């Protein structure tokens, strides 16, 4: 498969940087006590959202997660209306009724972030059913995390999507932690293998490599869009960003144990391999000939 041209790659880089800067600003605002509620930062996972959404048409749809800012920005949401929503303002996407975990923009195919882990998976499956039933050739992507892969609706939805041959792509972002516990202690086997019994092809890609994610997503989306037939079942690219920066930010009493955790994590330096979004260290990518250099998203 050919790589996206330089212009497209630059656009991916811009998109990843936009997400990174947005989240960095949020972390700052949160530290200063300016943000109501709590936020989950997407720093370190930018390549997944951008790699996948760059493989979609503008009218295609996504459902997102509690950690959804990156998905929304990558799908075309406006940063100003998102920020207004995060501040609970009437000018926000949800008129201040939703906040960080519930931003939606149906105009650009964002059916919504979701505060319930796994909650968006059936909704995405249903959107794909609705579009198919109404004769549209749209694809819906369901983003969810490794934690959600242990929810019953993940298996149920894959089953429904398989028997109804729905144009839905399930994208699991495995960032290594389910809440605060390492994923491998809570999750049996390989998540990408979980689709196999349903006859749904699953594959694992490096979620820090935007071009790999994009290539996998493009293939999955094309097959999903092609519609019925045994060659066109839903696909499951599995992103694996190795480590994220901030995990969960929420107001906690200063000095408490929880406060120590919440404050410590955002300050932890990002893992080198998570630097796909133009971070401080490009060595991981520069080591790979043919992809790095000055043109790709590794810088």
């Amino acid at each position, binding site marked *: 498969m050919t790589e996206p041209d330089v212009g497209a790659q630059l656009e991916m880089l811009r998109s990843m940087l936009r997400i990174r800067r947005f989240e960095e600003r949020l972390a700052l605002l949160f530290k200063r006590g300016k943000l109501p509620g709590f936020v989950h930062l997407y720093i370190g996972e930018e390549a997944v959202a951008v790699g996948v959404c760059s493989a979609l048409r503008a009218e295609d749809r996504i459902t997102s997660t509690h950690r959804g800012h990156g998905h929304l920005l990558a799908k075309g949401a406006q940063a100003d209306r998102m920020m207004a929503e995060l501040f609970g303002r009437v000018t926000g996407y949800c008129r201040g009724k*939703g906040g960080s975990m519930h931003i939606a923009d149906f105009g650009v195919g964002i059916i*919504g972030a979701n505060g319930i882990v796994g909650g968006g998976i059936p*909704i*995405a499956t*249903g959107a794909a059913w609705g579009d198919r039933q109404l004769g549209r050739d749209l694809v819906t992507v369901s983003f969810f995390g490794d934690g959600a892969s242990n929810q019953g609706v993940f298996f149920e*939805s894959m089953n429904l999507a398989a*028997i109804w041959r729905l144009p839905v792509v399930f994208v699991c972002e495995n960032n290594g932690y389910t809440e605060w516990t390492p994923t491998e202690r809570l999750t049996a086997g390989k998540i990408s293998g979980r689709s196999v019994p349903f006859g749904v092809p699953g594959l694992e890609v490096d979620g820090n490599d935007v071009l790999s994610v994009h290539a996998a997503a493009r293939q999955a989306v094309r097959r999903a869009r092609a519609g019925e037939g045994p060659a066109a079942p839903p696909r499951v690219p599995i992103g694996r960003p190795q480590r994220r920066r901030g995990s969960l930010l929420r107001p906690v009493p200063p000095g408490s144990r929880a406060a120590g955790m919440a404050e410590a994590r955002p300050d932890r330096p990002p893992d080198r391999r998570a630097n796909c979004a133009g971070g401080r260290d490009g060595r991981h990518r520069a080591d790979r000939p043919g992809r790095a250099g000055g043109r790709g998203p590794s810088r």
Partner: protein
Amino acid sequence: MTERSQYFVRAMAEGLRDAMREDPSVVVIGEDVDRSIIGATRGLIDEFGAERVRNTPISEATFVGACIGAAAVGLRPVVDLMVGSFFYVAMDQVANQAARLRYMTGGQVELPIVYFTASGPSGSAAAQHSENPHPMLMNVGGLKVVMPSTPADAKGLMLAAVRDPNPVLYFQDAVLAGVRGPVPDQPYEVPIGVADVKREGDDVTVVAVGALVGRALRVAESLALEGVSVEVVDPRTLVPLDLDAIVGSVRKTGRLVVCDNARRTCGAASEIAAAVTEVAFPSLKAAPRRVAWEDVPVPFSPILEQRVLVDEERISAAVLAVLGKVPVEG
């Protein structure tokens, strides 16, 4: 309008048929909806085909949730959940998703979905197949709840529910399935949120829902022989509640008995009694009484089940109690 006698579940099916005829985006899904064990979807597949009448796997949470996504992109799904307790299986998608999406997105999207089910005790079905989960769902906020008591209301409320732009939960009290009543031939709507006075009276207002409406009417008939005039009000819709109609009746009679086919605690009877008391306290000549199930799981054994549930004897005793004719029990 011409009408003929029809079974309750067939009247529901007529309402569904009318809705599917007028709008091709209306689809019906659920377990075995092609043949329909209880009957509300029977025959629809012959007229509308397998694309619009789809059997689902036994995955309540997922097919309840799938309807949210489908509705968000333009379908009008109707879901047969078959048994009231199955709402509990799908509770995240019902309460956290369907009830929330329109509000939490600042009104960006309408969600025209109907979730209907047979529910309530049907005779030794035991606790997992005897639930009427409407009290819990009334409390969720963001869901409309209807519960017809006659075949005519069943048909008209079904069409109204499908046309509504919000999720509507439609409860068919299981014992009513085979009840017959006059049903108009033509499509018609019974508006959501409008109560119906099923019998006029002067001494006591009895508010009853679902299958208890018929029992309340029989009690009213027999008490009339003793000179007691009972007014029977059927809310038909529990969310949004037609409080004006109920309060209007209580202002006339001065006495209130509320019968709910569900447990007492936080039930429809409790809500209606409290709401009426707040706004019409000066009109009340006696404390309102609730007639509802004991706060236990519905038993299997017939004799135990009878002890827990609401029968005519209990409704009658409550009416006489608010009239001061018998001592108040419990």
